[in-house]
């Protein structure tokens, strides 16, 4: 039995339990708890049917002020002109439906050319709409990104989107808790992306099903907010309901001064509240796992599931490595789809395309890291490479720093912000058989375009692959400037 939030308990609690308890509206007997939702993020793809549902039932939005909308999945990234005059009629109709719906129901929309437009999971943090202790949902599985701030954030389906619109709540069964401690210092050339890919490789794509993961330990503490968002973003790829990281000075410094963050005395009061969210000493988790950061290496996926992970100096597995009959079948299928020989060296895998972007790795720090690798080099003649900033803010910042020039000089395409080739809903897709080194989050069959083959990796590693034309160990990279891999 869970404890209603009106009763003060003194038992030590996890961060997740504190956030959960503070949002319980009702606990009907024999039914899921009704949880208050502080913020719903809305985009064009998973919302039109929800708005229609409201209209059919004659319902309004209970709290339009707790909704923010943007366009990201469908928008072309080729040019401002192409975004204003979208050729794809169906995509255009969906974007127009969002505009109409936001106007009708009173939701603030950050439209295509707004200075705050971007991937929905980029703009929440950038605006300071995402804060510690909040409950945040969106009709998108990568909503787990916002957990980097100590928020409880998770993806939902369209029926649930409608439910939140109508009631600002969701009926939810309480998830289990799972703490992953990553202790020690990350080796040279190893990033947040490598941590999370390693974790998914270890526990599998259903390893955390039904659980909320708390990422803890000194290696997590040492990450920037950008790195923490990368880790939490891919929690869903391990099957987790959500991922969370305790707020600390790094979090507060990131939030201070952002548009929707309290200022002055109110900020100090808010920080006081946020500090209290950390997991109490002695609180217990349903499951714990420990990882030694010093043992990690740059990770890369070889197959068609994010759990099919190896290291850059490793090999594509052989059938005998499969841990079960089901794995064996998946391996066989993946070898064929990916056109890889079992046991071959990962570094021998040649790529045709490179994509740096997405809600996983489309932030300023990711672009800086890629630019450091690229500077002084040129993209291989056999490779098509593109940089897609995750948001207008990231794009503007990168241009201020001259990163766009570094990329363009090196032969990369410099694009407008959006989800782009992460899921290929807009025109950015792979052709059948093309192989891509991608900083995104999913390597499913056809994810980046029908017949396309995806290798997930860090921005540094993607940049290096663009230059050499094959998967490359960034730890061996000869930097043309004074910089070093982060």
């Amino acid at each position, binding site marked *: 039995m869970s404890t209603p939030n009106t009763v003060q308990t003194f038992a030590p609690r996890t961060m997740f339990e504190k956030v959960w308890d*503070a949002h319980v*509206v*009702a606990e*009907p007997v024999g039914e*899921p708890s*009704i949880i208050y939702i*502080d*913020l719903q993020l809305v985009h064009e*793809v*998973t919302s*039109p*049917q929800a708005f229609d549902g409201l209209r059919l039932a004659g*319902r309004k939005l209970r709290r339009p*002020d*707790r909704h923010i909308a943007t366009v990201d*999945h469908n928008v072309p990234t080729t040019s401002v002109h192409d975004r204003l005059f979208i050729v794809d009629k*169906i*995509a255009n*109709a*969906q974007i127009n439906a969002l505009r109409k719906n936001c106007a009708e129901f009173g939701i603030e929309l950050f439209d295509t050319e707004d200075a705050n437009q971007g991937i929905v999971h980029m703009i929440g943090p950038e605006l*300071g709409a995402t804060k*510690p*202790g*909040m409950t945040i949902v969106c009709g*998108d599985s990568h*909503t787990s990104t916002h957990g980097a701030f100590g928020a409880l954030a998770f*993806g*939902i*389906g*369209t*029926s*649930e989107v409608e*439910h939140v619109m*109508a*009631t600002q*709540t969701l*009926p939810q*069964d309480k998830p289990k808790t799972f703490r992953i401690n990553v202790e020690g210092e990350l080796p040279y050339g190893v990033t947040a992306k490598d941590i999370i890919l390693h974790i998914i490789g270890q526990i599998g*794509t*259903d390893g955390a*099903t*039904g659980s909320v993961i708390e990422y803890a330990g000194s290696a997590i503490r040492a990450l920037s907010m950008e790195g923490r968002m990368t880790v939490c973003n891919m929690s869903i790829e391990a*099957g987790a*309901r959500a991922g969370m990281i305790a707020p600390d000075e790094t979090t507060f410094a990131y939030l201070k001064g952002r*548009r929707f963050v*309290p*200022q002055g005395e*109110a900020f100090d009061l808010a920080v006081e*509240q*946020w500090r209290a969210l950390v997991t109490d000493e002695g609180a217990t988790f349903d499951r714990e796992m420990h990882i030694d950061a010093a043992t990690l290496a740059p990770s890369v996926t070889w197959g068609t*599931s994010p759990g099919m992970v190896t290291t850059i100096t490793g090999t594509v597995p052989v059938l005998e490595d499969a841990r079960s009959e*089901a*794995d064996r*079948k*998946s391996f066989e299928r993946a070898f064929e789809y990916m056109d890889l020989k079992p046991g071959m060296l990962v570094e021998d895998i040649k790529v045709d395309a490179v994509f740096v972007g997405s809600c996983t790795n489309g932030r300023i720090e990711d672009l800086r890291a890629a630019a450091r690798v690229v500077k002084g080099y040129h993209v291989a003649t056999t490779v098509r490479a593109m940089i897609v900033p995750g948001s207008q803010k990231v794009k503007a910042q990168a241009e201020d720093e001259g990163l766009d020039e570094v990329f363009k000089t090196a032969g990369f395409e410099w694009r407008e912000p959006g989800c782009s080739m992460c*899921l290929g*809903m807009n025109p950015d897709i792979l052709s059948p058989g093309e192989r891509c080194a991608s900083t995104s989050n*999913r390597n*499913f069959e056809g994810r980046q375009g*029908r017949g396309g083959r995806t290798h997930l990796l860090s921005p540094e590693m993607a940049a290096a692959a663009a230059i050499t034309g094959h998967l490359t160990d960034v730890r061996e990279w000869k930097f043309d400037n004074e910089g070093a891999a982060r």
Partner: protein
Amino acid sequence: MKPINIITSTAVPLPLPNIDTDQIIPKQFLKRIERTGYEDFLFYDWRYNLDTPDHVDERKDFVLNKPEYKGSQILIAERNFGCGSSREHAAWAISQYGFLVVIAPTFADIFYSNAGKNGIILARLTEEEVQTLLAKSTANPKHLLTVNLEAQTVTDADGFSAHFDIDPFRKHCLLNGLDDIGLTLLHEDALDKFEAKHNDEFWLAPKKDEAA
């Protein structure tokens, strides 16, 4: 949502683990703004010969295209069915194609929730039981299964019988075809009270101007 209880039907075997929502319905069909009309897009990349114009040519080797499995209301797959994206279009496509039940050892969380809201029974059986059923339906496409939600069982005429667990509330909603929003609004008083207090917690407000 239509009430659902006892389904007797042949079953379509799809013996693969980790069938993700990108396979269940590829992204190009997510641009539509309608809630219906997804049945033709279910398992699109597996179902059609994509090298033909307009993809009209069905792949004869894919199980859904085999005439003997047409009209089946039960789908059987391996573990972690429905992983990946949160797209409810996956549940819509499965239900609109005519499936009322999916049997697998495990399901991904968001898909599990989406299926429930679309009147689909998800029956979690053990790996062994699923393998048995996959084998039976592969060997004999006419093999009939009965799924009884009330009794929480999957049975056949040869004496196969398996029990599946389901949350009592979810079961109640499926059996009665209940709409969630209406159920939540039964607690509107509690919601009003909660919200009045919660509005003052400005550190949890999405926007600054909302703060007191």
